């Protein structure tokens, strides 16, 4: 007689904890053939705001950690992802209906991308920063640093690769993120939250919301404590209105991308969420 399986409750991930939506709402996640797979929390405006508060509180610790430290913490996530490979493959197979080998190659690619970004944490300042030869007795240096809280609408047609490709680059420089997962394919995102919770990433650095991006995104785009908005997965939303809302606080905004090339790994995805700080210091005349 076969054993009765124990299904998982998929919840939100805010401030290092796994709350249900304060609204009490859930929505059904379906498998590839339309059958019931799970109930996911349907995040509300208040959940989004709570997530921004958690993200803001985490900015100082994460952005002031050394690049070497952030790199190791991010690498550790890849290690844990590798250990949970089977779980991610199962979820991708169930929700996307692909073969285990296709799902496996997706997980592998996601892990490799994560490692690629982890390695940038103590290097991007060298590549994107510079010493400036000003015409005067000054030490002058320009260095990129984290912009702060980044709100992300994750790619909607991908379980894991899209999510990782949007979240990892924002973390490299020390930003904290509030990310709205794929509405249809959120299971990998929540499982990734379990990885994050057991890794060394401080609570609040990554906050994950599931539910309706169309409902949540406007609250993030108009939130005065969000510094940047990545609309990579927002092509099916009214993203122009989101851009207009984001203009109110001069948010840094990345436009929607679609297709298999969305959010390809690049240094530009890291520097998009940085600010260049230029410091002048006098040199004495000796």
């Amino acid at each position, binding site marked *: 007689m076969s054993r009765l399986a124990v299904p998982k409750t998929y919840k939100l991930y805010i401030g290092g904890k796994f709350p249900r939506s304060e609204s009490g709402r859930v929505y059904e996640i379906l498998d590839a053939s339309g059958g019931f797979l799970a109930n996911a929390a349907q995040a509300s405006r208040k959940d989004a705001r709570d997530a921004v508060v958690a993200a803001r509180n985490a900015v100082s610790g994460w952005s002031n950690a050394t690049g070497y430290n952030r790199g190791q913490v991010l690498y550790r996530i890849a290690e844990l992802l590798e250990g949970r490979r089977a779980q991610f493959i199962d979820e991708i197979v169930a929700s996307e209906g692909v*073969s285990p080998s296709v799902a496996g190659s997706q997980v592998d690619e996601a892990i490799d991308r994560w490692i690629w970004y982890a390695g940038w944490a103590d290097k991007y300042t060298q*590549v994107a920063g510079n010493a400036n030869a000003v015409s005067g007795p000054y030490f002058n240096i320009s260095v990129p640093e984290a912009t702060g809280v980044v709100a992300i609408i994750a790619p909607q047609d991908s379980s894991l*690769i899209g999510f990782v490709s949007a979240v990892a680059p924002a973390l490299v420089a020390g930003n904290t993120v509030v990310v709205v997962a794929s509405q249809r394919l959120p299971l990998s995102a929540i499982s990734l939250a379990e990885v994050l919770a057991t890794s060394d990433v401080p609570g609040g650095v990554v906050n994950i919301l599931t539910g309706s991006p169309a409902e949540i995104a406007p609250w993030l785009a108009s939130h005065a404590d969000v510094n940047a908005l990545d609309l990579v997965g927002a092509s099916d939303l009214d993203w122009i209105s989101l851009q207009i809302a984001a203009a109110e606080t001069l948010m840094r905004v990345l436009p929607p991308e679609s297709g298999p*090339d969305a959010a390809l790994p690049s240094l530009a995805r890291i520097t998009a969420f940085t600010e260049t700080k230029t410091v002048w210091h006098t040199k004495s005349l000796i």
Partner: protein
Amino acid sequence: MSFLEYAPAPESTALLNLQSEYGLFINGEFVAGSDPTFSTISPATEKHIATIAQASSADVDAAVKAARTAYDTTWSRLSGRDRGKYLFRIARLVQERARELAVAESLDNGKPIKESRDVDVPLVAAWFFYYAGWADKLDHAGVGPNPRALGVAAQVIPWNFPLLMLAWKIAPALAAGNTVVLKPAETTPLTALLFAEIVQQAGLPAGVVNIVTGAGETGRALVNHPDVNKVAFTGSTSVGREIARSLAGTSKKLTLELGGKGANIVFDDAPIDQAIEGIVRGIFFNQGHVCCAGSRLLVQENIHDEVVERLKTRLGTLRVGDPLDKNTDVGAINSAEQLQRIRTLSDIGEAEGAERWSPACDLPENGFWFAPTIFTNVSTSSRIARDEIFGPVLSILSFRTPAEAIAKANNTPYGLSAGIWSDKGSKILAVADKLRAGVIWANTFNQFDPSSPFGGYKESGYGREGGKQGLAAYLAPAAFGSSPTALPVSTSSALEGADK
């Protein structure tokens, strides 16, 4: 005559050979504008200088068409080396006509001749010289190999550094291979029109640089023109917001250099003599019409009274008056409108309980003038500690610990500049790390250089001007989708799966 009184030493305006009326500069020629002309005046005397054309949306369209044609037919086909040579020519012409440009700038803007002569115009030449050398080295601009120009750039600049802001916009744009349509500020169009003559003298292909004069409507027509690929704006945060909103959903690349409320932090171990000079330079340079001005002075509590006292003594020696006089330190406020704003905010400061002080100084009867002013006992919630005044008004606050200084400095929606004064290098570097501002001056203030990126955090805008970063703002990667990635591309099969 006391030792502080000087005989007048006005710079001669004889070398200015102004026309009585200026048209729009479109496709290499001056043409009449369609809308009614307006007058540009000297803010020091309110006297008429020249009649200026006002560009209608049809004129703006003609300018954008000229820029597009020039981009398609000449400029984008020119080698980087030759683009660079044109920019070097411009740099030299600016140097040759430096005095004339400085006089015109002080006349039209109201800034002291020693600033236009020693700061603005030399930096204009430096900016063109610096970016000229970039034109054939774009592979090193940081956007990957074979970057491409964006196309036609729409540029709208403010009145505080009219010719310098023009250089900040036009030099990197042309070096990167773009053509431009630039709108100078309504109250300071003169030097941009002289620059148009320089463009002619340099033999730049027609349409590469177009100058359209006018007010807000002209600017709106320009940035919203559908055939523009890039918008660069320097000015107020409210207009920056409006532009960001109106560009939503377009593919136009946008950089914004907006307002500020810079903190100038003086620690008790600062070199006080230099700090006093730096405070003065930070807020009274260019009448405080500087987006990166150090308009909030944060002084460590134990030296507060001493600093205020010495500052008052120093302000007593500032000479306010004729911008064309070589001894003038503080010139005229640029416009009646701006003067009104400064007066209103200063009155609010007083009403909110801050203590107002200005040195005794005689202000000319005509023109727009505001005496250097400091406020003590300013609370962090006061309007004069939060709003950008954009005038010669300094708000002084105190702090006890570095942590408090940092918290107060960052307590603003802006994030353009900050200053730190201390003789302790390790303290300066630690504080600089924690300040949320794009430009930080340690033991100096209001320094600018074409190789040094400039721009803000938060609501002070985005993008950088100056340096490699300022060049990249006018470039795109070789082709869409090709990013500087080093990750082995093993993604295709995995992503096909994701599409199912």
